[in-house]
């Protein structure tokens, strides 16, 4: 066991974490299904039919909605959008957060305190207001520009783009704090000083020596950012600011279902199935994050 590299040890610990492995397989299956769904499904997600508000049966496994659209097809298309927004949004937040935090921590001193004050100030804005203002601003700026470059049919895509950038731009703060703290403690370590004494450039030190050392922390936090971004997106879609109909995300599907609640009839399937898909995906992502954290924490070998 001692001849294994730390990475191999971590991988071994991760594989022994059954819940995390199961979550990884589950997520892989979801991603595959979501990608291949257009070829499997008997229904198009936007195909309207006479069968309104059908409860789940052999024909429509998840039932149908107000326009008689197959909810299973809609849910999988929605999941595709949700996952895409989650992954890309988390990626955007990763880039901003790591660069900001690493630069602040590496420079230290006055730069560090100014850059971290900026993070503190952004933290104390209510996130709802921040997201709404940011997304509408982006929309105003980018839409004009996009319309010149692309044709109007791309408006659905541009919507996604605002969500990527907007959600990424509000969820990088914690990442910046975490990375900054780690870099701050790493930059005075002897291997970094040695590299500096040898005349390495700052970029080289950050990229080759510091970032690989905090990669574990970053990976874990990104895994936990994906569900957070998915939740924010579904919240925005619930408000009507996210994905626009006839496109759907899991959040907008749940919002549609919630809009149909009344005291006479309960269309439970319109909430239960999209919500089930959303919640199980979020659960799997969280378990994955926990498993990764346990696996990448060198102390966890001694503990158990």
């Amino acid at each position: 066991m001692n001849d294994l590299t730390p990475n191999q040890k971590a991988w071994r610990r991760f594989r022994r974490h059954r819940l995390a492995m199961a979550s990884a397989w589950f997520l892989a299956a979801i991603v595959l299904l979501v990608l291949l769904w257009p070829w499997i499904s008997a229904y198009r997600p936007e195909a309207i039919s006479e069968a309104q508000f059908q409860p789940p049966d052999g024909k429509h496994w998840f039932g149908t909605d107000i326009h008689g659209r197959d909810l299973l097809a809609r849910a999988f298309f929605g999941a595709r959008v949700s996952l895409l927004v989650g992954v890309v949004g988390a990626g955007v937040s990763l880039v901003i957060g790591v660069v900001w935090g690493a630069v602040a921590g590496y420079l230290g001193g006055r730069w560090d305190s100014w850059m971290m004050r900026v993070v503190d100030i952004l933290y104390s804005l209510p996130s709802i207001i921040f997201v709404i203002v940011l997304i509408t601003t982006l929309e105003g700026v980018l839409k004009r520009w996009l319309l010149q470059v692309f044709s109007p049919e791309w408006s659905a895509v541009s919507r996604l783009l605002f969500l990527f950038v907007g959600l990424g731009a509000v969820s990088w703060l914690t990442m910046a704090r975490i990375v900054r703290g780690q870099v701050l403690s790493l930059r005075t370590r002897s291997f970094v000083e040695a590299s500096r004494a040898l005349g390495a450039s700052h970029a080289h030190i950050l990229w080759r020596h510091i970032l690989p050392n905090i990669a574990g922390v970053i990976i874990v936090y990104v895994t936990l950012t994906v569900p957070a971004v998915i939740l924010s997106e579904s919240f925005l879609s619930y408000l009507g600011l996210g994905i626009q109909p006839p496109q759907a995300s899991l959040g907008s599907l749940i919002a549609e279902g919630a809009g149909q609640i009344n005291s006479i009839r309960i269309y439970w399937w319109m909430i239960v199935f999209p919500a089930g898909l959303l919640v199980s995906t979020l659960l799997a992502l969280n378990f994955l994050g926990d498993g990764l954290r346990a696996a990448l924490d060198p102390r966890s070998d001694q503990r158990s």
Partner: protein
Amino acid sequence: MYFLKRLIFLIPLLLVISFLAFGLVRVAPGGPFDRERKPASPEIERNLRAKYHLNDPVWKQYLRFLGVGFERDAQGRMQGFTGGLIRGDFGPSLKYRNHGVTDIIAQALPVSMALGLLAFGFALGVGIPLGFFTAVKQGCWQDYAGSFLAILAVCVPGFVVGPALVMWFGLHWRWFPVALWDSPAHMVLPTVTLGLYFAGKIARLMREGMLTTLNEGFIVTARAKGLSETALLWRHAFRLAVLPVVSYAGPMLADLLTGSFIVENIFQIPGLGVFMVNSSLNRDYPMVVGLVLLYAILLLGLNLVVDLLYSLLDRRVRYE
């Protein structure tokens, strides 16, 4: 002394935040009068803009908002601004005319605060015991079941919990009223909807804190000395283990007290959360700035309280 210094430092910080909020909402496209009932004629809009001084340069509007500065009145005499932040006035709302932002907040905040405090109590009351016992039973089935419940609570968004509770507890079994904010019975479903996520979060923090603390040297020593398990867990471990919860509780309370759009929307509760969303959608500039400031004051103030509590709970923490 340290806390006094921080308290004084809050003032420039709040000024920066207010200025940022002021600038941010103005950068966003669209204006406060875009969604008038009838499309406002250019003339009406011009008059409205003049009435609310929206044609002044932004710095002047900001000074007016602060209530610091002078302007020439109709007779050409220099007059100090009346109202403004330094006199405790957030200015007029551009959407709900004839109402000041301060009035609106004064009306909606108590409702949001009541709901927020209930949810806060629910989150702590469920989260801390759950985290504590799952940590004590680490590795047993109780741990797995409890931890699963905690992570489930974190993963189910409020707009799923709310409608689900309404469908079953409200409409199907008819145990609780489904909307409005009157009697204690009305408060049950909103409280659970709002507090569930935070309860899960706190349970996870508490469990993590307990596990870390139980591995520390002084606990091992205390156990070796033959201290009873109850005294050990409650008197020694709990104090330290609850620290992560304390530091999370500050921002959490700020979030809870300023209302939640989802919960207020689902249960038709007249709180602040609805204003948070609508004001930024409608570009009700003074309203947005007022709400941002309210949130920031709560957040920064509560963080200060958290740091105070920290030094009380963990004597090793010293602020110079």
